[in-house]
């Protein structure tokens, strides 16, 4: 990599010193808001009773609901930690790909790209909220767990799909494609290169990481179920 491009990196890192923090806060605020809205609006006590009454008794359902209410704050605590971990892992994948290609290690500019691209993945969450709020108002716990807009899973009847295939079929969705392009655009800008080059780097780095992650989830699903 020539000196002009390396100076471009330094410039980006200096310029984005504070912006990364703000972006991270906005992203986490939106994630938490949607999670909170989903819990309050979609997960009603009635939903638990309708869904579980065939399997467990009334008292047991009440106990589950009580436990869910008592421990829901933990999910709001875990979500930011989980998001931070996710950004770190994705950035590490891209940085590693960059290291393989250019023999240099840069983390911060790619971290910002990962946070910015993540805004794309907030859209399916919002669609899910609106879908069950206005369109499919009669739903079950299973519907909520399996719904992912514009994913391959929508082409199958959920009951006919093996449990270990649910996650890969959810991951294969149009928002994931848009996310890849967002990452590629950001990486290309950071590298001062073409979108094609950025996409190549994202495919080799993030793509490999995603394959490993999906296989790990499938492995755990088969092992623990």
């Amino acid at each position, binding site marked *: 990599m020539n000196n002009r491009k390396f100076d471009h990196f330094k410039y980006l890192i200096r310029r984005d010193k504070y912006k990364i923090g703000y972006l991270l806060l906005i992203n986490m605020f939106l994630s938490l808001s949607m999670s909170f809205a989903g819990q309050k609006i979609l997960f009603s006590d009635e939903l638990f009773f309708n869904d579980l009454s065939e399997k467990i*008794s009334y008292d*047991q359902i009440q106990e589950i609901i009580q436990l869910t209410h008592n421990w829901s704050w933990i999910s709001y605590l875990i979500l930011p930690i989980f998001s931070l971990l996710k950004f770190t892992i994705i950035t590490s994948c891209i940085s590693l790909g960059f290291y393989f290609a250019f023999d240099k290690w840069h983390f911060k500019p790619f971290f910002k790209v990962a946070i910015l691209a993540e805004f794309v993945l907030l859209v399916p969450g919002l669609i899910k909220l609106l879908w069950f709020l206005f369109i499919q108002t009669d739903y079950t716990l299973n519907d909520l767990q399996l719904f992912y807009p514009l994913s391959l899973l929508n082409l199958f009847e959920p009951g006919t799909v093996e449990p270990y295939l649910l996650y890969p079929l959810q991951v294969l969705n149009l928002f994931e494609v848009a996310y890849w392009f967002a990452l590629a655009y950001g990486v290309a800008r950071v590298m001062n290169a073409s979108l094609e080059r950025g996409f190549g780097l994202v495919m080799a780095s993030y793509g490999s990481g995603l394959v*490993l992650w999906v296989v790990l989830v499938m492995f755990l699903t*088969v092992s623990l179920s």
Partner: protein
Amino acid sequence: MRTYLKWAILMAFLCTLAYLVWGFTTKLERKKAIAKRTQTLPSCTVQGISGDTFTLTSAGKPTVLIYFEPDCEHCQREARELRNEYAALAEANLVLLSAAPVPALKTFVQTYQLASVPGLRMAHIDRQVAHDTFGFVSVPDVLIYHADGTLSHRFKGETSITAIAKRL
């Protein structure tokens, strides 16, 4: 040095991926074999808590197998409900299986007064045998067999006695 590092990272990635793919396919094959085997009540000898051993057979009646652990809260609730509503399962052979040691099972029977449930048998089963024969991994796990020994239904997790009775 950098070349070695890159090769090491690449090899670590490929080895992890290969291990996960191998593990996934192996476990999937085993799971399918167990699912096929449990379609009819497998012949399996277990150790009763009074020192006797017996083989699981349908003997012309529906059979309910409940795999549990004495320390599990869900299993304790299940046991409490079983003691109170056992009449719903009066027509079935009821066998509670656990990998816990026999003394712990005896304590469990006393604590939840299960000795008063007619037709109930409590037995110890080796953890590996439980996994290989019935695919028991988590607790509670309920297998319900028809009188002819064919599988009626499998419930994973806490299940009400009413739901079990409906599947007899």
